[in-house]
């Protein structure tokens, strides 16, 4: 379970271009719930995700994961509980290391690292099996450096790395935005299958309204650092792209044109 309690974050405080990125934002995500976050640019989506992951400290407010206050826990300690897939395929993997080594790093996310040999036979066969689910042939390229993979393959690898070990919370930061439509569908399909199978508590940020309609248990719309609208349960089933876009303020109609 994820709880964000009146989170506040102000950029350029006291300067003329002061900007309130999170305005006492509160949000609760039940265990096993899949929340989809939408909102125009500058609504605070990324700031919220960075606050949850620990990459950006809050001015005020609390972040709780499964009831534990992690507000002041650094990124690498929060990683015990949180897995994240970045928007940029380059960010989520170590380019100069091999597929297998990246898988190893992800496996050790929630464990303490020892002086034992990292890549043993048991792990390698386990990685082969987990990667074969994607159907991209990555299982035969365990020794390939990740920089030689395509963006879609890297992002798929990031996803497999993130869902392994069943994290308490999965953060997806527009993770299909940088991919071509076909690859984006492939990665999205793999995401939904993994989230369903493992019943992961998931927070996904997206600009793709169709994804917001099709996937997840609840749509959360942010505007000016606050939750403007939540659609869950029965209502979520009836929602359409047009209805969602109606909720955007005039200011962000540019998004409609883009969609």
């Amino acid at each position, binding site marked *: 379970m994820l709880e964000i309690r009146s989170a506040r974050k102000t950029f350029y405080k006291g300067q003329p271009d002061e900007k309130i990125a999170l305005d006492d934002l509160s949000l609760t995500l039940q265990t096993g719930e899949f929340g989809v976050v939408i909102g125009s640019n500058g609504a605070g989506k990324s700031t919220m995700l960075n606050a949850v992951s620990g990459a950006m400290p809050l001015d005020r407010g609390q972040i709780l994961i499964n009831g534990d206050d992690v507000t002041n826990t650094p990124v690498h300690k929060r990683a*015990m509980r949180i897995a994240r897939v970045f928007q940029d395929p380059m*960010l989520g993997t170590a*380019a100069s*290391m091999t597929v297998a080594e990246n898988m190893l790093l992800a496996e050790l996310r929630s464990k303490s690292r020892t002086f034992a040999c990292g*890549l043993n036979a048991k792990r390698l066969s386990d990685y082969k099996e987990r990667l074969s689910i994607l159907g991209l042939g990555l299982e035969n390229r365990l020794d390939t450096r990740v920089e030689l993979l395509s963006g879609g393959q890297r992002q798929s690898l990031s996803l497999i790395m993130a869902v392994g070990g069943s994290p308490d919370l999965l953060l997806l930061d527009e993770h299909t935005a940088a991919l071509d439509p076909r690859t984006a569908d492939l990665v999205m399909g793999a995401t939904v299958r993994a989230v369903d199978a493992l019943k992961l508590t998931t927070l996904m940020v997206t600009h793709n309204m169709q994804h917001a309609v099709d996937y997840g248990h609840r749509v959360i719309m942010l505007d000016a650092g606050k939750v403007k609208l939540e659609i869950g349960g029965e209502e979520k089933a009836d929602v359409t792209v047009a209805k969602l876009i109606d909720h955007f303020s005039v200011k962000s109609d540019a998004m409609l044109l883009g969609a």
Partner: protein
Amino acid sequence: MMEFLSSTFTSYVALVPVTLAQSLILAFVVMGIMIPFRTLHFPDLTSEGAYPLGGCVAGVLIAAGVNPALAIVAALLCGFAAGCCTALIHLRFRIHTLLAGILMMTMLYSINLRIMGKSNLSIFGTGSVFDWAPFVTPGFPAAKIIIAGIIGAAVFVALNWFFKTEKGTAMRAVGANPAMAEAQGISVWVSTIGGVGLASAFSATSGALMVQSQGFADVNMGLGILINGLAALMIGEAIVGKHSVFRQLLAPFVGAIIYYQLVSLCLAAGMPPPDLKLATGLFVLAMLALPSLKRGRGGAPAREKFRE
């Protein structure tokens, strides 16, 4: 012409053992340069100060009658501390790694002078670790080659093992992608401080061995060591490659051996020693410029590509 070639060749061959011993000792500095540059993506200049630091510490201790092996351990620990300081300056104050290294090596110069109390110190005639070489007469290059070779082989095997363990893989990840490493639960601070510390420990070890080999310590012994080490590293990487842990670790040794033989050849051919630094600098420049020259006349790529 034939006479020139034959005299050059004769004097070069006569120098081969001495040069080999020297290059095996200096291979540790090259290792101390490679680890921050390649494994941690932390361009580091501390070695220019850590190498004489190791030499001064070992020199003073040996002159005071301390066991030469113990003197090396002490030098190693001092080097480790110096490296940790450089990493800490960068991490805590967000100062560029190169500037942090320059600060550290400048401060180390004074510290080295303080440690020795004078600018140079002779330990000629006292014992050294090279006296313990089996099968050979102490004092000859063969003894140095054997001892430095054994330590080098041990370091190579140990590092080749370490960088494949869970902890070692995590350290490499910090160099490859710090944001990703942090998101995977790896402390960037611990890995960077530990890694740069380890590297400077190697540089200091090299200084300690060199002092025992040449019989004196000098505060200026580190002058230009970094550029020599870089040149050696680049030669090594050009020969054995750098795309696996094994090859990347082998490169400093291969590079050091070949680089110092090339230097010896140049000197044997009558190149004035003062020109050596210019030649080395031009060589490193050429190696660094090669990829850009191959790419064509485009000039420097966008600045964003530069990674701290």
